[in-house]
């Protein structure tokens, strides 16, 4: 009923896709929705941007049909509860550590070494501090480096999406962890630079597309397209959105 009232045109069907804020802030999710809508005029794809934990919660409560998340540990629990009809890693990007240009020379090397240097030097670090995939990863990286930054005076939490967190880090001359696409989308307004941290598996960022059980045929079709059809067009989208080739890549 609600879907019928809220949808765009007569006879069009609404699919609600909830995605991590990094994907929405980078512009990729809207671009994908536009692409699908122009090929399927009868379908209205509504994009909601939330932290991955909340995206999964929306799926759990039946408020979203298709979920795009990048928080493996949280996804595992969702899948274990049998709430997914279809779920696959569809594409990947990577995380980057960004900071003020003045720290570029000081902060380079492996991610562990750089995090240890940040903690030792008490350099201001801005954390998402929400249930996002980016924040989950950040916590894992601190753990791997043997540091517990919680409660330290140089460690700040915004509890907000990727875009606002990047702005706070930029204005406070601080360091933050960002998904590459949302950083590049905002980069020309910011002084932040990508720090030269050697990319290991710890900075890989896989996006999982999940179709919640018991959804409409239109929702299922959109989810299948995200997994099978959309990845082939990613390099073209990378160029049109970011003027770069390889921000988002098809999953292997």
């Amino acid at each position, binding site marked *: 009923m609600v879907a019928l009232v809220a949808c765009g045109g007569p006879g069009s069907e609404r699919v609600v896709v909830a995605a991590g804020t990094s994907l929405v802030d980078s512009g990729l999710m809207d671009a994908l929705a536009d692409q699908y809508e122009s090929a399927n005029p009868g379908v209205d794809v509504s994009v909601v941007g*939330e*932290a991955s*934990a*909340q995206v999964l*919660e929306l799926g759990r409560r039946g408020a979203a049909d298709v979920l795009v998340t990048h928080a493996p540990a949280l996804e595992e629990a969702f899948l274990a509860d049998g709430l997914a009809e279809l779920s696959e890693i569809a594409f990947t990007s990577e995380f980057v550590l960004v900071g003020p240009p003045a720290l570029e020379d000081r902060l380079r090397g492996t991610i562990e070494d750089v995090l240890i240097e940040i903690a030792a030097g008490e350099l201001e670090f801005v954390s998402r*501090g*929400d*249930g996002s995939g980016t924040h989950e990863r950040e916590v894992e990286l601190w753990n791997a480096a043997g540091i517990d930054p919680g409660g330290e005076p140089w460690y*700040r*939490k*915004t*509890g*907000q999406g990727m875009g*606002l967190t990047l*702005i*706070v880090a*930029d*204005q*406070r001359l601080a360091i933050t962890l960002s998904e590459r696409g949302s950083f590049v989308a905002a980069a020309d307004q910011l*002084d932040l630079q990508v720090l030269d941290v050697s990319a290991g598996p710890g900075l890989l960022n896989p996006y999982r597309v999940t179709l919640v059980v018991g959804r409409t045929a239109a929702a299922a079709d959109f989810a299948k397209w995200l997994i099978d059809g959309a990845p082939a067009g990613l390099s073209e989208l990378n160029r049109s959105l970011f003027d770069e080739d390889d921000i988002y890549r098809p999953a292997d």
Partner: protein
Amino acid sequence: MGFVLEVLRDALEALSGGLGGDLGAVVWLTSWIALVATGIAVLVGIPLGTVLGLGEFRAKRSITVLVNTAMGMPPVLAGLVLLLLLWRGGPFGSWGLLFTPPAMVLAQATLAIPIAVGLTAAAVGGLPPAAKEQLAAFRLPRWRRGAVAVREVWPAVGGAVAAAFGRVISEVGAVLIVGGNIRGETRVLTTAIVQETRQAQFGQALAFGFVLLGMALVVNAGITWLQFKDSAQ
């Protein structure tokens, strides 16, 4: 219904913990930011509103239109403009105010001043013509005449103060943009509600909402008491 009751129970549970930890810091920051911003709005807005309401000058109508428009100023627009002004490298960037409580006070005062001006002007401007003539006949300095007029319509001016406070305490768009919702530094009740809702912590979000309503109730009860106390004389 079960879902709502469950959230309500979570909210009460969160409140039963008292004002310890994060909640205390959030309530404290919310209170002082709202009080300072309302104070600024009162100190600036009531005199300006009195001048606008009592004065006779050419631009009176155009200024009234501008003030009334500013009363409906979208908070996110005020936040955006302040963000640009306070941006490092921007016109006032060297003040270093962005993402600090003073920036939030500035944002809220910007939104509340037009309300104090507009409602005060409407209140004193609404004095009956006879009262205005009488007032003009007093051989008093202008500011004293203004003070007498404000006192005459005090319950309505008290309403202006309450409206300014209501705008400030419930506002979320502007303080999120210029404050950044930084834990322990710029997180206030409204931005905390947004965040907890986004993270599906509905009970915690609702608990913050109850505290917010409680604060509004206390302040408005105080203002109303002042209104009645004076109008009874």
